[in-house]
């Protein structure tokens, strides 16, 4: 991972857990950097099992949602699975308004999400 990584990444038992460091995922350069880093993780895995934790995130934009959709499509293309967890209630409302809570597999906590991989 690059020294200026915006992600905290750990892989345990075939599941790559990614925690966003930034409180705001709004601007295009930031989103592009995050998308590129996660794409690398997907490319490296034979079958990517990815868990994204939003515990630090206070704000995200429609551009960030777009990046998440692109990540989801890439993971699905490789036969893997993507789960999201620890989403602040205000941000979860954004997922509901856009109906993306139907597209993504969202769990309340990382523990819940990890169990769902089993």
């Amino acid at each position: 991972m690059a020294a200026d990584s915006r992600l905290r990444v750990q892989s345990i038992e075939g599941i790559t857990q990614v925690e966003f460091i930034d409180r705001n995922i709004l601007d295009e350069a930031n989103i592009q950097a995050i998308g590129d880093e996660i794409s690398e993780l997907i490319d490296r895995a034979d079958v990517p099992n990815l868990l994204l934790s939003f515990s630090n995130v206070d704000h995200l934009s429609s551009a960030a949602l777009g990046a998440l959709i692109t990540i989801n499509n890439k993971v699905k293309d490789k036969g893997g699975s993507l789960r999201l967890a620890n989403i602040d209630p205000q941000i979860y409302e954004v997922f509901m308004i856009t109906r993306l809570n139907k597209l993504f597999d969202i769990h309340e906590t990382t523990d819940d999400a990890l169990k769902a991989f089993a």
Partner: protein
Amino acid sequence: MSTSNGSNPGAPPETATVSLPHDRDRIDALQSALMFAVERAGYAKPSRFAIKLAFEEAIMNAFHHGHKGLDENLEIRVEYAVAPGEVLIVVEDQGPGFDPDSIPDPTLDENLALPSGRGIMLMRAYMTEVAHNASGNRVELRYVRPQD
């Protein structure tokens, strides 16, 4: 950038009028100034979340869609007025404009996996009123403070 400060309830709205380049530091500085004004005017956290999100979407739409294919150095014009009862944000780009109703509904099942097209719907969801001018290169966002 011109600003006027109205930090007490009887004061006039806190306002700014800015010509903004596509530069993240400048966008962040204006966003911070707006959000400080909103906080000073006493808006609660859900309101601040809504205003910050709608501001970001309007700015990004202006640069990415309004100025698509045009000179990267073109600036947009942003105005805001923050009063205790409502917040008004106006964003105008120099592009030819577009029809906001031409964007496919991103919440339809067949469009859920499309990575774009959600900016305007989020503005409409979180603002009290979203109005485009006839040519579609200027958007007015109005947020009325919810009753406690």
